[in-house]
């Protein structure tokens, strides 16, 4: 008995791990009825050896699938072990892990068996059992099954905190190439159903207080990067469009990890491009928190992100006319654009400068990355400079003074002893 459940968990966790989202924040479900669980700012309960956060029990209901998407481990043509959980098994696992403070909740996805509605119905049964029978108020992230009916998806939204459906590839063209049975249109339709319902519930809530929660932590999606030849501009352009059209909470970017010998994609053993993934996330952050327009960072002149330096620094070097920024007088929006100053330190700068002009030693204490920022700012005791340095000189200086975590370690050198 316990051997079988162990095997199932191994198979179905292994198959679910390529969904990168592990967010458990953004919901406001409270434990009102002396039941179990609540949600809030989210907690990472552990981290795997790849450095990724473990916050939710992330599993597939089953890895049986009728589709044959080239980029997916669970594709029907792949010769792997298959398994399926029962409704009770998923509920038991979630409750027992949750009660031991292992997890924040459940991330449930599934391969598609029989058809979309049949699969969605089983997933719905699980979340309903958790919410209604177990009195579970922890976080639930539910994957929308492409092609599931509007009624089913809407009902699921009443129990889930977040719902998501993956774009898979950044462009329709790329998706058609690897997964001819899928389309971005279908994704748009499902995202649209949730968005419209969300707006409807929010409107009703203004009038009637007791309107139930509907996907309180919003929707997200994911794109695989590096399986198909899209440019960074294509990728972020798509992200920007979906953020705007569907008010998504997050877009996730996942560096493709070769899992098949399909000749259309990178061969097995190719290292996933983690640095590119990182630069895409940085761009995403600049768009969402730093008020950058995607076109300022990626455009026809610059369709690719600079892998050596981060996109904010890259933008600053391309726009020397915007600098130096005077820390003691500039507005918040401009301070946010200085390389080496993050959200929190920008807020601290604004708070602290009300009490007197800021000096270099204070800036260093506030937690800004002064080594990087010094070339772009002026404060009370900045040394007088005769002429500004050329961007390419600056770039070299900054690169020399910083150590990238992606710098190649000379580990492959021949050892003589």
């Amino acid at each position, binding site marked *: 008995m*316990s051997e079988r*459940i*162990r095997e199932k*968990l*191994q198979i179905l*966790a*292994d198959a*679910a*791990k*390529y969904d990168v989202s592990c967010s458990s924040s953004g919901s406001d479900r*409270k*434990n009102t009825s*002396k*039941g*179990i*669980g*609540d949600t809030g700012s989210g*907690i*990472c*309960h*552990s*981290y*795997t*050896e*790849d*450095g*990724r*956060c*473990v916050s939710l*029990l*992330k599993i597939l209901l089953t890895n049986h699938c009728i589709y044959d998407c080239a980029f997916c481990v669970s594709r029907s043509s792949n010769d792997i072990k298959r398994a399926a959980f029962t409704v009770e098994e998923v509920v038991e*696992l979630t409750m*027992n*892990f949750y*009660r*031991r*403070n*292992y997890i924040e909740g459940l991330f449930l996805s599934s391969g598609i068996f029989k058809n979309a509605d049949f699969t969605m119905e089983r997933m719905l049964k699980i979340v309903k059992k958790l919410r209604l029978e177990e*009195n579970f108020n922890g976080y639930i992230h539910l994957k929308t099954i492409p092609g599931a009916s509007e009624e089913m998806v809407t009902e699921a939204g009443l129990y889930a905190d977040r719902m998501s459906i993956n774009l898979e590839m950044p462009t329709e063209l790329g998706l058609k190439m690897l997964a001819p049975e899928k389309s971005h249109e279908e994704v748009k339709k499902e995202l649209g159903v949730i968005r419209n319902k969300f707006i409807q519930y929010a409107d009703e809530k203004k009038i009637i207080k007791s309107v139930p929660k509907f996907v309180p932590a919003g929707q997200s999606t994911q794109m695989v990067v590096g399986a198909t030849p899209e440019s960074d501009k294509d990728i972020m352009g798509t992200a920007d469009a979906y953020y705007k059209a569907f008010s998504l909470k997050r877009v996730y970017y996942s*560096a493709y*990890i070769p899992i098949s010998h399909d000749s259309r994609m990178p061969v097995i053993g190719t*290292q*996933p491009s*983690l640095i590119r993934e990182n630069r895409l996330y940085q761009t995403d952050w600049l768009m969402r928190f730093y008020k950058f327009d995607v076109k300022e960072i990626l455009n026809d002149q610059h369709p690719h992100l600079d892998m050596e330096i981060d996109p904010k620094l890259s933008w600053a070097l391309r726009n020397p006319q915007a600098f130096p920024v005077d820390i003691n007088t500039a507005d918040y929006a401009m301070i946010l654009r200085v390389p080496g100053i993050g959200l929190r330190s920008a807020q*601290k700068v604004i*708070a*602290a400068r*009300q*009490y*007197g002009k*800021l000096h270099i030693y*204070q800036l260093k*204490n*506030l937690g800004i990355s002064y080594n990087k920022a010094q070339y772009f700012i002026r404060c009370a005791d900045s040394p007088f400079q005769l002429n500004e340095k050329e961007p390419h000189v600056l770039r070299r200086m900054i690169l020399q003074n910083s150590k990238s*975590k992606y710098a190649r370690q000379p580990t492959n050198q021949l050892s003589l002893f």
Partner: protein
Amino acid sequence: MVIYVFDGTFSGLLTAVFESFGRKHRQVKLVCEEHFEQDMFSETVRVTADKAKSERVWEGLKTKGGKEARKQFYSAFLSESAEIFQHLFDYALYVFNQPAGYANNFGNSHVLAVSQMAQKVHREKHRMEAFIRFQKSGNGLFFAVVSPDYNVLPLILKHFKDRYADQVWVIYDERRKYGIHYDLHHVHEVTFDFKPEATTDQSQLAIAMDEKEELYTTLWKDYFKSTNIKERKNMKLHIQHVPKRYWRYLVEKEDDLRV
């Protein structure tokens, strides 16, 4: 410089602030009783913790600094560091001597020190909320043993009470020899000498486990391994997020510790 000797309690520290105002002492060295050594040349004031006095200072901190800053003040105190006691004292004097709002002047060294320490304590609080692992005993009690860097049990209490409202639990701080116990209604502080290391002999194990406990720890370990992506291995990041000193409390890491 005048030396103030206080008992190390929060109320004692606040009383010291009160006393310094009454005596018009601006330059004070605050020393905790257990570290105090009498010297012949300095004037010494013994501070006795006083409820009424400390409450007035506590109220004053809210009026002058605001609720958020006051919360940071308390968090920083829980670091139990001698250095921060002095900063807290000077911080309080500074805030009271300035117009309202100066609790946010990070240009001031005491304000910055308190805010940075509060941040550290907050991180430890958050780590405890993440890393605490309950084990279920035969009688249905969920218990966890921890050894946090700072005295954060008072800060995590509400989180666990709200979340695990329908199960009886105990969280025990083995470094400070006390725990918090939730009985389905209230959280109490409990003190008992609990030595998990001493119970290596199975027959002497003080707490009998629930029959399913082993299954779920095994499943959790399995899950932890299966959800890892080998191609993305990044041990530096892993250890940065889960520092080794916490491994002994984490079910999923305990096997790595033995290697």
